[in-house]
């Protein structure tokens, strides 16, 4: 199965205005990895930081390129790519990485529209 991956379309659910850091993160990830899905969400407003901050992000990445990598190696590949941002403006980075197969196992054949991975376990009942 070699479908041409859709052009990664970053979610627009994260707010009306994307800051410069978010744009850099999205661009780097989309250019570096061959992704079926990419979501970059600025979660800074959930934290005790000034309005408009770009300090806390959540990433959801789905790509065949991750299938053969361990969990730690997957995260390290993202850490490495975003090293400058992690050493600078980004204070916290939640990362959820799936191969397409893992994504289907977890979320079924639903289109790659991302459920929230907030970690409250509510998805388990689906």
């Amino acid at each position, binding site marked *: 199965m070699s479908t041409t991956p859709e052009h990664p379309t970053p979610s627009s659910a994260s707010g009306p205005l994307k800051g410069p850091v978010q744009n850099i993160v999205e661009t780097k990830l989309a250019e570096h990895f061959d992704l079926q899905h990419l979501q970059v969400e600025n979660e800074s407003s959930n934290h005790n930081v000034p309005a408009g901050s770009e300090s806390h992000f959540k990433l959801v990445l789905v790509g065949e390129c991750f299938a053969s990598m361990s969990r730690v190696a997957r995260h390290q590949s993202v850490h490495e790519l975003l090293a400058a941002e*992690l050493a600078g403006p980004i204070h916290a980075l939640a990362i959820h990485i799936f191969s397409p197969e893992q994504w289907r196992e977890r979320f079924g054949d639903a289109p790659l529209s991302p459920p929230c991975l907030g970690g409250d376990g509510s998805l*388990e009942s689906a």
Partner: protein
Amino acid sequence: MTDAVVDNIKDQIESNPIILYMKGSPQAPQCGFSAQTINCLVECGERFAYVDILSNPDIRATLPGYSNWPTFPQLFVEGELVGGCDIITEMFEAGELKPLIKEASARAQAAEGDAEA
């Protein structure tokens, strides 16, 4: 000085089968990611060691370079980096964390028993 810190870290990771580097303590985590990780670990029901990196700034500064992992918390089991909050939570929800922790703990206890015998 950094070499001494690295030696210290190596010693901690080697002598504790389950060790978490976190912000704050299990009783009073100082960060949501550390708190969530602690919840998963406590559910596994085994004893584990922890290091509060907020009160150990040299470990906080040195561990990321040693482990190739830039953020905290960081969980090590039997000398190996298992991951941070996202990976621990994922493994916990997939039912993979508990057996990993239980088995590591059982092996450590068996080794201790051998040493005492």
